Every structure is written in structure tokens, then in C-alpha cells.
């Protein structure tokens, strides 16, 4: 048990002038969950790419069972029993679960044709090994993200993976789905698999990890067992300074009602009513699939509503289209930053200025100089590097992309801002900056509605919490009465077993 299954030492990797990894080490024992933590850009992903054979190290050694190995291609990694579950799943949504599980190694019958019966039998067996209750005949795309991830884990296990790397596996999962994942992780640990678990979520690391290793800026900071370290220690190691409390607690003084939503509804949604005042942060909490995002989209005019009213500063806003909502003073940063928020191939300048061009045109002609000046101002405010202005947005880190998405609406200076998962996939340093920004915006008189799956965040940054279930607002809690247990109780519905009430986990 004590001899490491996998030992990485002295790993160094350079990209041009940047030292992405500098003499880092990590060892993994069989039957251990080893959490790897660090801010975005700390080098976690680079190390995992080296381990998976996607890139080559410049220096250092990789030992498996004490024997040095070379991993030049993803195929080498698989041969060594190393499997990686990436954030972006590596599956084919249009094919069934069973087909996905046999992808690349389809069993053939004696006529050389695909043996469908065996595909199905094998799939059942593979799913049973991780105790996943999934119908293998269903198209993969019809399952929730959590279940899709399970399928990928089942595939890795079936290839006799001894080292399983999970890269932020719960980033897109609901609570219930995450719980199921934890159960699978625990089972695999019990079976002697070594797991490297990359996560930004402190609470799950504390729940799962045996040991924790922290990287910072491409360097190794330290390793310790869960018992030896406190959360504060880990945070300090990650940021290189004491980050203090993430959330501010001095009360804000909300003013007039700015956003007044009355009985908005659409099929399967609402009716829902709520208000957000100037200088107030209201968060919408609920399970994934509870209709939080959908309600926000109705307010913003992104989807058509069948009834109800929205008033902004007392004036009715009945948008058929987001462009009208924006003109009425609304702004929305969508949850899916890459798919719905940003123009990844276009420059940061274009991304930030797109919604405010009306302020910078003479006739239809854009005053380029004025746009650049205004965009730079917002970039400075968000501490984005100035020389990033002409880079394609794709080249920015997740945190900086999110800042660019926020900057778009800071430039517009909209009185109502809807922020859907503003800190998803963002490292803790950028997270803190975003919290500070939200607080500063509220204090400057903005009305802010935040949607967040991160409960401590949803409670910590808000003055009030609206709990959403089944497309309705089932409870409104003041900041002082909202606790995680409290919010969760309403989110899952009193008395209901949330494991089965979550749509993503229906068998």
C-alpha cells in the first residue's frame, strides 16, 4: 500500500518563454484519492496532459510501480492503465450508451458483423462494475451530463485503468449528480484504483481526498494529508497569501425597486414574481434543471413568455428579443460562456464593445478610437492585461474570459444585471475579484440577480436568496436566514428524496 503506484518527479515543461511547470512532483498510491489543487494556470492541466501523453515533458521522470516509463502518446498512457476524464466529455451523444462503451473495440460475430447482443451485454457489465444504474440502450445525449460522465468512467474502468484522473468532474453537475459521482469515486478507491482529483471546490475535496497537493504558478507548493491541513492552509498555499473571507458582510442599503417581475410564465415555467432593488444582490438558487436559467431568459427576452410583466424602473419591458431588453436596461451574462457568451475567434475589444456600439457611433460609423479607450478603461477596472485587447478571446484563461463577458455589461452600464453562474470554472483569485466587483456594482446602485449552483456563493454574496424548484420560486430567504441546509431543503422540496427527484438521474 505504501509504495507509490505512480510517481512523477522533477517534471518541467516550457512553452516558449513561459515555464509552465517547474520541477513539480506528485505521487499517487493505490487506493488513494489525491486532490490536485491550484488556481487556473497553476499547471495542473499541463501535468495531466503530460501524464496522458498529449504533450511531452522537457525534464523529469514518470515511474509506475517504481519502474520508469515513457508516455509519448495517449495510447501509451492507456497501455499503462492511465485514464483521464476531461471536463469536455469525449463521447458521441448521438450513439447509445452501449455503443459508446464499445467504441473502437466493437465485438464482431463470426460473420465479421457487429455483435449487437454482446455490445449490450458488455455494456451492462461495465456499468454494473461502477454500480451505475443507466439504460445502455438510450442515446447518450439523452442523459444528463452527470450520467454521461459515469459512462465515460465506466469505459475507463473497463480498460482496467489503475490511475484515474478526474478533471473538475463536478463543475457541471447538480448536487445529486455530484453525490453519485462521489459514491463511484469511493468505490473505485476501495477497489485499489489511484485517483487524481482536480477540483476548485474546497468542500468536495475535503469530503473525498486522502491527500492534497497544491501547485502555484507552475511550481510545486506542498502535499499533505487531509488531517494535517486546514482549508485556510490550502487556500493560502494556492494564492500565496491569505485570502481572508471571500464574502463581504457589511450590509448594503438597497434602494428603490429596479427590476419588478410579475407572474412571468411559459410552458413548464412560472408563474414567478420577484423584485430586485437598486444596490441589492439577489441570488437564485436551485438544482440544475430547476428552471433558474430559464426564468432569467424569460426576463431577458431570450425566450418567449406566455404571460406576465416585467418592469424596469417602473417602465414595462416586454421584449420579444434581447436587444429590446438591453435597451430597457437589462443585461445578462449567460451560463455557457463559450457557447452563448463570447465570440471566441474575435478580439477582446470586439467582445466587450459589441453591446454598447450605439454609444460610439456617429450615424452608423463606429468611432474606433473612442471604443478602444472605453474598452481599455473597463479592462483596467477588471485587471485584464491591456495588451490582451487585440487577442482572440479564445486565448484567454477561463477567469479572464469571464471578466471579458462581464466587461461587456460594465461598459454598457446597465442598471439591471443578470449573472448566470458568474464564477463557474474560474479560479479562486478571479472568483474573489468577481465577488468584489458584484459588491461594488451593487453599492453603485445596480440591481443584480445572480444564479449560482455553488451554495456558499449563492448565500454569501446575496442580500436575499430565491429558491427555485420546478420553474417556480418556492421560497424567499433573507441573507441571515439562509443556510446551505435551509436552501437545499426548499430546493429539493420538503419530504422529497432529492436523489430521485432530480431529472438528470431518472433511470
Amino acid at each position: 500500500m505504501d509504495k507509490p503506484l505512480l510517481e512523477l518527479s522533477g517534471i518541467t515543461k516550457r512553452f516558449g518563454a513561459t515555464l509552465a511547470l517547474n520541477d513539480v512532483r506528485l505521487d499517487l498510491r493505490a487506493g488513494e484519492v489525491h486532490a490536485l489543487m491550484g488556481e487556473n494556470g497553476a499547471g495542473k492541466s499541463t501535468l495531466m496532459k503530460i501524464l496522458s501523453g498529449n504533450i511531452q515533458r522537457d525534464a523529469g521522470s514518470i515511474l509506475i510501480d517504481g519502474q520508469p516509463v515513457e508516455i509519448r502518446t495517449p495510447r501509451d498512457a492507456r497501455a499503462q492503465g492511465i485514464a483521464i476524464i476531461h471536463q469536455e466529455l469525449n463521447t458521441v451523444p448521438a450513439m447509445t450508451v452501449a455503443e459508446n462503451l464499445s467504441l473502437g473495440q466493437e465485438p464482431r460475430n463470426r460473420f465479421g458483423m457487429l455483435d449487437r447482443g454482446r455490445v449490450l451485454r458488455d455494456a451492462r457489465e461495465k456499468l454494473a462494475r461502477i454500480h451505475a444504474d443507466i439504460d445502455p440502450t438510450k442515446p447518450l445525449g439523452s442523459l444528463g451530463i452527470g450520467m454521461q460522465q459515469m459512462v465515460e468512467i465506466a469505459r475507463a474502468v473497463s480498460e482496467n485503468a489503475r490511475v484515474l484522473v478526474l478533471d473538475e468532474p463536478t463543475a457541471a453537475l447538480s448536487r445529486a449528480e455530484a453525490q453519485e459521482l462521489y459514491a463511484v469515486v469511493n468505490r473505485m478507491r476501495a477497489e485499489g484504483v489511484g485517483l487524481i482529483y482536480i477540483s476548485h471546490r474546497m468542500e468536495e475535496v475535503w469530503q473525498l481526498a486522502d491527500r492534497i497537493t497544491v501547485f502555484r504558478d507552475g511550481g510545486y507548493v506542498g502535499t499533505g494529508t487531509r488531517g494535517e491541513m486546514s482549508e485556510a492552509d490550502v487556500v493560502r498555499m494556492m494564492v500565496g497569501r491569505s485570502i481572508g473571507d471571500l464574502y463581504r458582510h457589511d450590509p448594503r442599503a438597497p434602494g428603490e425597486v429596479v427590476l419588478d417581475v410579475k407572474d412571468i410564465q411559459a410552458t413548464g415555467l412560472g408563474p414567478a414574481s420577484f423584485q430586485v432593488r437598486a444596490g441589492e444582490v439577489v441570488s437564485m438558487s436551485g438544482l440544475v434543471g430547476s428552471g433558474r436559467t430559464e426564468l432569467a431568459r424569460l426576463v431577458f427576452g431570450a425566450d418567449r413568455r406566455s404571460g406576465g410583466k416585467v418592469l424596469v424602473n417602473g417602465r414595462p419591458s416586454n421584449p420579444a428579443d434581447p436587444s429590446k431588453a438591453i435597451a430597457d436596461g437589462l443585461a445578462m451574462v449567460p451560463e455557457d460562456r463559450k457557447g452563448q457568451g463570447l465570440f471566441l475567434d474575435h478580439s477582446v475589444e470586439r467582445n466587450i464593445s459589441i453591446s454598447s456600439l450605439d454609444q460610439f457611433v456617429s450615424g452608423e460609423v463606429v468611432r474606433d478610437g473612442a471604443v478602444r479607450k472605453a474598452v481599455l478603461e473597463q479592462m483596467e477596472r477588471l485587471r485584464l492585461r491591456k495588451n490582451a485587447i487585440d487577442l482572440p478571446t479564445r486565448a484567454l484563461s477561463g477567469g479572464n474570459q469571464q471578466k471579458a463577458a462581464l466587461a461587456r455589461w460594465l461598459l454598457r452600464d446597465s442598471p439591471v444585471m443578470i449573472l448566470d453562474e458568474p464564477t463557474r470554472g474560474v479560479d479562486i483569485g478571479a472568483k474573489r475579484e468577481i465577488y468584489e466587483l458584484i459588491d461594488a456594482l451593487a453599492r453603485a446602485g445596480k440591481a443584480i440577480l445572480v444564479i449560482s449552483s455553488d451554495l456558499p456563493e449563492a448565500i454569501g454574496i446575496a442580500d436575499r436568496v430565491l429558491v427555485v424548484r420546478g420553474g417556480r420560486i418556492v421560497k424567499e430567504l433573507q441573507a441571515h436566514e439562509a443556510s446551505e441546509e435551509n436552501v437545499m431543503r426548499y430546493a429539493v422540496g420538503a419530504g422529497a428524496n432529492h436523489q430521485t427527484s432530480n431529472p438528470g438521474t431518472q433511470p
Partner: protein
Amino acid sequence: MNASPEPVAEAAVTKQRNQFDFAWWWDRVGILMVLILLVVLMSIFAPNFNRVDNLLNIARSISVNAILAAGLTFVILTGGIDLSVGSIVAVSGVVAVIAAIEGVPAPVAVVIGMAVGGACGLVNGVLTAYLALAPFIVTLGTMTFLRGLAYTITNGQPIVSSDLNFKDLGNGYLLGIPVPVIAMAAVFLVAWFVLERTRYGRHVYAVGGNAQAARLAGVQVNRIILSVYVVAGICAGLAGVIFAARVISAQPTAGTGYELDAIAAVVLGGTSLVGGRGRIVGTLIGAVILGVLTTGLILLNVQFFTQLLIKGVVIILAVAIDSLKQRPELLSVLFGRGQGPSKG
């Protein structure tokens, strides 16, 4: 204090710029280099190639295709496609000639031709933007329909009008420059200004870059999509009128296959068929390359059949280079730069 940790990807971008960044250079001067090379080769090997009158001839001969391609650039930048522009050339030419024969003054006849083109584009746009039909299918349909319309109006016969009142639009000169060339220059100037300097232009790029994000950012996506087909239609209408003026008649077969030459010019110019990326200047260069190639090969006495072979290869080469630049790992494989890219 430095609050944003340096992500590897940003570093990688800077790194590439320091070394030889093929994509960066190709984007800016690549296609222009191809043109210059082509012109140099032609000047050496083709007799009389670089005489002023020949160059003006080339310019005039490409003007119809270039104007079509200019309009098409708008459509392709949004991620759409318009296969009907060749047929619009025929319909608008036919209508303009008939109008002129009926006694309508020349400028009005020209405007009528362009308006007919715009109306055809409007149909494409409405079907694509508001009924959310695939533009490839919609414009394949209107391509066929409009060709049929041109035949129907003319009864399948060319309408020749030797004293066509707007024939100078095709054959005249202004200050020694052929009028079609002036029209082409004007179209590209306007298109450049609209795409590069106006809010509308930025919205066109935004729709092609990410239509969903554009909508949530307040761009009226449907309106933009509708408008680009109208732009393509108006350009095709103008091209149709110029073509009719050039041949001093209304030809129901006019513009057959032109849509493909126009698409080739746009793609040669580096505009991505996926949308969101490209430049109008590239389209002009693409059209010129095709024109130079055609004329040069004729001057070199290359057989028509062989010309087609060469043009096909050139188009595929240009697109291949363009797609290589999107996938640097293929490039490094080709040039043996060792390992693949290091994306962060």
C-alpha cells in the same frame, strides 16, 4: 499585484508571434503574395500580359464576378451561403433590358435591375432568417426558380437591343477607365467601409462568429441575416445589369455557374465558410487572382479544358492552406517541427 495568473495559452500566442507564425502572415499577406507571384509569372511568360490595355481588360472581365463576390462576402461572413446570385444576374438583366426597351430612362432601368436583385435577396433572406431554413437549400431552390423565371420572361430567347440606353455601363470608359471597373471599385469601397467601419459591419461579423452570443448581446440576428441576402441580391442585380450592358442584350442564360466563381473568389480571399472571419479586401484579391489566371492562361494558349484543371487545383490549394493555418498541428507534421501544438 498581478491578479490574473498567466495562462499558458496567452503565452503560447506570444511565443508563436516571436517565431515564424505562418497563420499570422498568411492572414495578412499570404493571398497577396500568391497574386504577386502569379502576376510576375504571367508577365514573364505570357506575351503582352502587362500591357495597360490588357490589364484594363482583365479588370473589366472580372468586374461582374467581383461584384457578385463582394455581396456574397456579406452572406458568407454570417455563416450563410447564396447559390442564387448567378440566376439573379439573369433575371435582373432581363428586367432591366425590358424596362429600357419600354422607354424607361437609363439610370432608372439600372435601379430597377438592382431592385429586382434586392427583391430576390429579400425572398432568400426571409426564408433563411424567419423560417430558419438552411440557406444552402433555400438558395438552391431560388437558383432554380429564378433561372426558370428568366427563361419564362424571355420565352427562352435572348432579347437583343442594339441601342440599349444603358450599354455604356458595360462598354463605356470614364477618364480612360472602363465603367464596369469603376462600378466594381465603388462597390468594394462601400463594402469595405460598411464592414470595417460601421456598427452594421461589426454585427455581421458577430452573427457569423456566434449567432447565439450575438443575439444575447443585443444584435438583431434575424434582421442582419435578412439584410445580407438583400445586399447579395442588390450586388447580383448590379452585376446582372452590367452583364446585360456588356452584351447589349437580355440573356436568360446569363450568369450560369457564376455563383461558384464568386464563392471561389470569397474563399480564395480567406473568408471562412463557417462565418465570422474574413476580409472584403481578400475577396477582391481572390477575384483578381481568378481573373488573372483565366486571362493569363488564354494568353499562354492553354486549352480551355486544361484551364479548368488548373483553376480547380488553385482553389483547392488556397483552401487547403487556409485550413492548415487553423490547424497548426498539421503544419508541424508537414514541416517536421516535432511535437504538436501546446495548447494551454
